[in-house]
């Protein structure tokens, strides 16, 4: 892609102020929206899925105007979008880039995979200690069983 076209493309989807979350796996786009509660935000959002990317076969991108995220909040998406990158935009310029980091503790968000865990029987907020970040392994604070990345289901 020529520089000219690149600029054109950016212009089309650019936002003046806000956050661009890039490199989300397409299949997890709506989970990311729901974890960040973007379905409840009054701010303007645009998103695209199944886009070309060097790193992912098909990636998704979210652009949220006039909204910025605390690290603790943004790290919640690390479980399902570990390679997500954030661009913080002010006056059409990228003023900061952030990567997500898998947190050491995960509260809520994920269901414990153990069907016999109390958290699947009563309305309890789940709580996990992250025992491995790559691949992700979560130890339930209640039943002490480990939910692996492939067993992870978003609540």
């Amino acid at each position, binding site marked *: 892609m020529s520089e000219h076209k690149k600029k054109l493309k950016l212009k089309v989807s650019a936002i003046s102020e806000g956050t661009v979350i890039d490199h989300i796996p397409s299949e997890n786009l709506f989970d990311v929206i729901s974890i960040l509660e973007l379905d409840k935000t009054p701010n303007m959002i645009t998103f695209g899925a199944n886009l070309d990317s060097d790193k992912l076969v098909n990636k998704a991108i979210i652009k949220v105007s006039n909204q910025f995220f605390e690290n603790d909040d943004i790290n919640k998406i690390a479980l399902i979008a570990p390679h997500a990158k954030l661009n913080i935009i002010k006056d059409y310029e990228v003023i900061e880039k952030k990567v997500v980091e898998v947190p050491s503790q995960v509260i809520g968000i994920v269901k*414990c995979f*153990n069907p*016999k*865990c*109390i*958290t699947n*029987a*009563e309305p*309890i907020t789940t709580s996990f200690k992250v025992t491995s970040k790559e691949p992700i392994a979560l130890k*339930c*604070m*209640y*039943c*002490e*069983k*480990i939910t692996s990345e492939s067993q992870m289901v978003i609540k």
Partner: protein
Amino acid sequence: MNKKDLISIMDYSKEEHLRIMDLAADFEKNPNQKLLEGKVVASLFFEPSTRTRLSFETAINRMGGRIVGFSDAGSSSVTKGETLHDTIRMVSQYADLIVMRHPLEGSARYAAEVSSVPVINAGDGANQHPTQTLLDMYSILKTQNTFDDLNIFMVGDLRYGRTVHSLLMAMSQFENPIFNFIAPEELLMPEEYKIYLREKGIRFFEHLEFTDIISEADIVYMTRVQKERFSDPMEYEEVKNVYILRNSMLENTKPNMRILHPLPRVNEIATDVDKNEKAYYFQQALNGVFTREAIIAHALNLK
């Protein structure tokens, strides 16, 4: 957490484990110490358990406490659909201490969160049963006079057996243990525990049978190999007699060697072993009463 709950064996520090041992020895000398006079203990058994419940209730009675509760969920408000949350919330207002067994894993940790009084986990599904581990430890200490330099054989179902997992964690705190795991292919010690031992630099060995090596053991901890654990029934038929301890196998064992079993036993220890002085499982069950008295006294700061 200021409350002294006992949910998982490693909730207690090594010092607390040792303190429970001291207290248990004290209760063994004098089981009828009326430290619970005027106190009410809730004994909530959401699933039946003969041994654990009777052991706890004996301990409470010997300490002069009163018991309220139920021995199976059928006679509780669970049948009306009450949540564990609400049951615990209510009972913790009535009683000074809650002893609870529940079929769901993690239920005890959750109950401790909800309860305003200490909770002692008497078994939460396949997860934890810390009072069993403490009585196992007390039995080991009583028969060996030390926790150090012991060669511990664990035999049978090492994959699903929560008692062996907790005992492994507890004994790993002491000097120079050696573990020998004897189990069929389908019921091997889970990888996470082996990783734990490797990280701590603790020696362990795995075997498919133990007749030839039993002479090295200080403690033989037997567990039941259950047919329903096998995906292939033929596999069970092949191994079912390998994990049975018989009196003839004890001939060349160490004089200090003792056989432990969390009970109930089915056939994994032949009855001809019972009369051998190395059979310790019935005394082990009695130790459960003293250990539980110690745990209760510790939870309520009575000693």
